């Protein structure tokens, strides 16, 4: 079954068609890359899929639920249960330690469990940095904390908007390896990237241009 199905999804800001008539499906367990020039609507699309924003028109079937017409509280609910978000700018809470940043996601999902949060950090190789504040971590380490945070509630779909955009090659490699492992464990992942090398390791790449899906290429 498809984890995600977009049908004629548009997002229009006045005269700007940030996303226009997008049709796309993602199968469960699939790893998808989205590429396209700046301003082509990649983040817009990710926000709609991630229940952070609502489309102007069209339907978004997420794990069998149409989320396109839901209210903000309903979207919060779905996002909490089904989505794991990773950002280019990390967005860690600066006054909380690494493990606490992971636990914030647990707190708003259900209840905090420090042991489990530490295990999530261990999965991204950061068990020994659990007590560090974000400013005491390198960019790559911060992004790994974000991944641990995105994974902690077992989301149906992991959305990563340019996760390696602020990282050097070594750290990019580490992050991609983590995604590869998650993919191997059966996670559904959508990753936005400018880097063809990143796109190459995914199952399929969707190209956006001026808000439209220009083409879809299988990497297998």
């Amino acid at each position: 079954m498809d984890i995600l199905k977009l049908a004629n999804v548009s997002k229009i800001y006045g005269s700007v068609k940030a996303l226009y008539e997008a049709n796309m499906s993602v199968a469960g367990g699939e790893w998808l890359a989205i590429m396209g020039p700046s301003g082509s609507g990649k983040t817009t699309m990710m926000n709609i899929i991630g229940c952070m924003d609502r489309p102007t028109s069209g339907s978004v079937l997420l794990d069998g639920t149409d989320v396109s017409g839901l209210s903000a509280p309903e979207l919060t609910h779905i996002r909490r249960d089904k989505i794991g978000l990773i950002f280019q700018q990390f967005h860690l809470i600066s006054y909380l330690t690494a493990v606490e940043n992971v636990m914030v996601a647990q707190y708003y999902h259900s209840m905090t469990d420090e042991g489990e949060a530490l295990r999530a950090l261990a999965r991204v190789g950061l068990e020994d940095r659990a007590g560090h504040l974000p400013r005491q971590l390198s960019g790559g380490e911060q992004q790994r904390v974000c991944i641990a945070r995105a994974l902690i509630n077992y989301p149906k779909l992991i959305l990563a908007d340019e996760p390696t955009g602020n990282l050097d090659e070594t750290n990019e490699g580490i992050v991609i390896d983590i995604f590869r492992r998650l993919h191997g464990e059966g996670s559904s992942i959508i990753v936005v990237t400018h880097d063809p090398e990143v796109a190459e390791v995914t199952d399929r790449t969707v190209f956006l241009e001026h808000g439209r899906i220009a083409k879809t290429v299988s990497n297998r």
Partner: protein
Amino acid sequence: MFLRMLTGAISRQKARALTIALAMALGASLATSMLNVMLDVGDKVNQELKAYGANLTVVPRSASIMGDLYGDAGGNRKAEKFLAEDELPKLKTIFWAFNIVDYTPYLDVTASVTGPKGTFDAPVSGVWFDRRFDAPTGEAVETGVIRMKSWWRLEGDWPAEDASQCVVGANLASKLGVVVGDTLNAAAKKSETVTASGIFHSGGDEDDALFAPLAVAQRIAGKPGLVSRIEVSALTTPENELARRAAQNPNSLSRHEWDTWYCTAYISSIAYQIEEVVTGARAKPVLSVAEGEGAILRKTQLLMLLLTVLCLACSALAISNLVTASVMERGAEIGLLEAVGASRFDVSALILAEALVTTLTGGAVGYFAGRVFAQIIGRSVFGSPINSNALVPPLVAVLVTAVTIAGSLPAIRLLMSMKPAETLRG
């Protein structure tokens, strides 16, 4: 986790938290001092009103019996005027006799009082303590200071009505070194040894005086059968226009109005009737003075209330500014919380809790500062210390909470209108 986020967020924004706390501390300190002053001064004036439990004083009119006629040489003193003791029962013969609840004569004399610690000049008042007699109308009357000064605190006993005993005001007693049961000597015209049967605390000027049975004071003063004044407490009907006109000049009323006035228990008609029966008496309502004070107090309290409200409104404005700035600055953090599943309500609760923790801390500091201010105001304006009212801390806590919530509303409105998708882009 919530607590951790709370403390983390507050300690990260120390400077802003401090400013918010300060804004609240200022508001709370003013509110505290105003409330303390307001509540305490209210009590003080109430006490005074009670002290005027007597609402009429009867004093000699200018053309009354001269002290000299009774053999007082007078010396270089002005001719004192007195009322006659044997006319006192007449008060119970007036039209509104039954409205006269209690009354007592006073003979005031300054005497040299000698106690264990020495001799001091002190005011001595001769009064009725517990006088029982049959009025000319046949009514059995029981009256005196014991009934009229019901709020006085007494150690020991009241003097027996005609015994050589007295009660000493607390201040005078400590000056003289007198304890209950001691004997004192009081001397003016004549000297007499009296036993202090009790020591009283009136909370007023009487604490510096000595109260003795009327006959004792008359002997000391050498003024048998004379009284300086009478304190009367009477049940009265509230004043109205008619009563005010009558009080100015009863002769200005029409026949019909005069009848109405005379047959209503206005304080002015009772006073008029007392003057009719007691020779050379002038009866003055006391309550009107207290009422005037009451009106000024109410206005002062209103002003203070207004000031407190304004001040709290300023605090609310300052808090509103600061909390809104904080929310705007933390857009990304708020967007992130929503991205990991916090609802708007969750985020609002966090922001409100942050504000409340900060303002309640500031409010507590302000409360203690306010108590100090209240003392300063009490000393400099009212000349007496201000008691801290137990009602004030909860009241201030409620005010601080209300002000914080009101001040945080704009920030929460802003928060509700923020889109996580947009805040996270920044």
